[in-house]
């Protein structure tokens, strides 16, 4: 297969997937798409496996042209999506003809956009995943002019009424905000913070520019550890809210080192982590306390919505005779 996706304007884009699972015992962070929900939905809208490779486009404008007819889906933060200058919807499959230019501009409210293509990208893999690991120096960071190998097999889809969307699949679209509410549950070391723990919920925090896929730094009123004594290095989960010395909170995200030595005050929920993957430096966020049961229920509801979408996609693709790989 010699089909390619030619990248004109790469901005800050990488080939990404849901992460490198099962390697934390060997010291490797899971990494993977920071907004897991949007990444899953992009692949599902293309009939792909949820964990297949797709593009993660961060903050800056992006454009590319496929060498063959493709079906794409663009999810994540609100942005202006056009194909040869014609506005197209996010969160729905979009048919793109060979040689047309896909443009994603004006990413707003959130910071990450996901672009999946029916089929797969040709990209290097490490321990079963193409997810970039910046500490290992692994990952496919796109550059202007790159030609990304494409394995695709989508017939051209003609629509009798141009500009009327071909699909109405009603994907589960999360809300994007200028100020965010991020759900957390109690952390295992909550008691070490005494009365100061409640500060976490009192006022909003401002997201520092030093934030990335490893962790977000938040400025604001910081709880203080009242217990003394050294904390032995131990495994900390993605989502751990830590209070290092200084005036900032640290919230660990998917690129975090698997071990750390700070007490864990709270843990961001699974749905909260997808939202946190969209928070922009300079925005403000508030934490909201959830019980474990509430957090699990919310995550299962979100995943159930993706499963239901998968079924609708199958039905529609079968009707249109779009071949999809077996899941």
């Amino acid at each position: 297969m010699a089909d390619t996706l030619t990248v004109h304007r790469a901005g800050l884009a990488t080939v990404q997937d849901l992460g490198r699972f099962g390697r934390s015992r060997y010291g490797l962070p899971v990494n993977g798409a920071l907004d897991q929900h949007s990444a899953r939905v992009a692949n599902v809208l293309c009939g792909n496996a949820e964990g297949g490779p797709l593009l993660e486009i961060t903050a800056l404008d992006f454009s590319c042209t496929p060498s063959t007819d493709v079906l794409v889906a663009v999810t994540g933060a609100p942005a202006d999506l056009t194909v040869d200058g014609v506005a197209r919807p996010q969160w729905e499959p979009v048919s793109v003809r060979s040689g047309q230019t896909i443009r994603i501009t004006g990413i707003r409210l959130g910071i990450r956009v996901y672009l999946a293509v029916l089929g797969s990208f040709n990209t290097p893999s490490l321990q079963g995943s193409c997810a970039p690991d910046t500490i290992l120096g692994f990952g496919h960071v796109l550059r202007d002019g790159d030609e990304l190998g494409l394995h695709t097999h989508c017939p051209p889809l003609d629509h009798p009424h141009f500009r009327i969307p071909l699909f109405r699949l009603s994907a589960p679209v999360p809300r994007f905000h200028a100020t965010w509410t991020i759900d957390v549950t109690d952390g295992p070391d909550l008691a070490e913070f005494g009365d100061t723990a409640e500060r976490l919920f009192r006022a909003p925090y401002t997201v520092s520019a030093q934030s990335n896929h490893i962790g977000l730094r938040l400025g604001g009123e910081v709880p203080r550890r009242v217990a003394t004594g050294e904390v032995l290095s131990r495994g900390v989960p993605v989502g751990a809210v830590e209070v290092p010395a200084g005036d900032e909170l640290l919230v660990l995200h998917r690129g975090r080192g698997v071990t750390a030595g700070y007490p864990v005050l709270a843990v961001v929920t699974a749905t909260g982590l997808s939202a946190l993957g969209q928070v922009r430096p300079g925005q403000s966020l508030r934490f909201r306390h959830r019980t474990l049961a509430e957090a699990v229920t919310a995550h299962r509801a979100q995943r159930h919505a993706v499963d239901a979408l998968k079924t609708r996609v199958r039905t529609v693709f079968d009707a249109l005779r779009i071949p999809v790989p077996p899941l």
Partner: protein
Amino acid sequence: MPDTDSSVAIVDCGDSAVVARATSGDAERDWQLVHSLADAFDAVRLDGVYGIVPTYDALLVEFDCAGTDHETVRRVLRREADRLGEGPVRTAAARRFVVPVVYGGEYGPDLPVVAEQLGLTEQEVVELHSGADLTVRCLGAPAGAPMMDGPAFPRPVPRLASPRTRVLPGSVAVAGRQAVICPMPSPGGWPLLGRTPLSVLDLDADPLTPYRPGDTFRFRPITPEQWDDHAGLPLAVSHG
């Protein structure tokens, strides 16, 4: 609610993780227990579990709470911990790695400061660091770094007040009562004593690093002139 029936306490750690903590208070025994428990739990291959991190006295288990639940993970951890009983024994034979290190100077810029903090000469610090086999306790951050029991220094070594933004690969560092080799360039707050010319990590290997918890490292001082004799060679088990 913490589950503390026996020598292991199991606590929830958010909606996608639990932690099992060994509670005997004996460091060697706690470490044996969490690593034995990690092996036993891993062998169960429970659906939905995607990562385990055994360290000194704790085992973190991360999972997808849409694919399994806290109760199931806790139950399996408890069952495997009970099965291990009172005297867990790890069966994997310890291997020994001999690691050449250039100490001090540009290779270990914090050697003078560490010596001063410990009230020792630089030579004494090097002798203590290279004078005994150090046991790998776990693989940690960054990039599967071998986290070792530190050398027999008279007291813990403080972390740097201001962490470096980039530590060179192969850097040999100490902090608290721990020692480590940094496999890849990364930020770091641990004082650097020296640097090995060996290549610690191989991106084409699986796993990426050759050592396991329980293995030992012996550091061997070399001169800067001997650096090129070892440069880029892979870290490998010593059969000498």
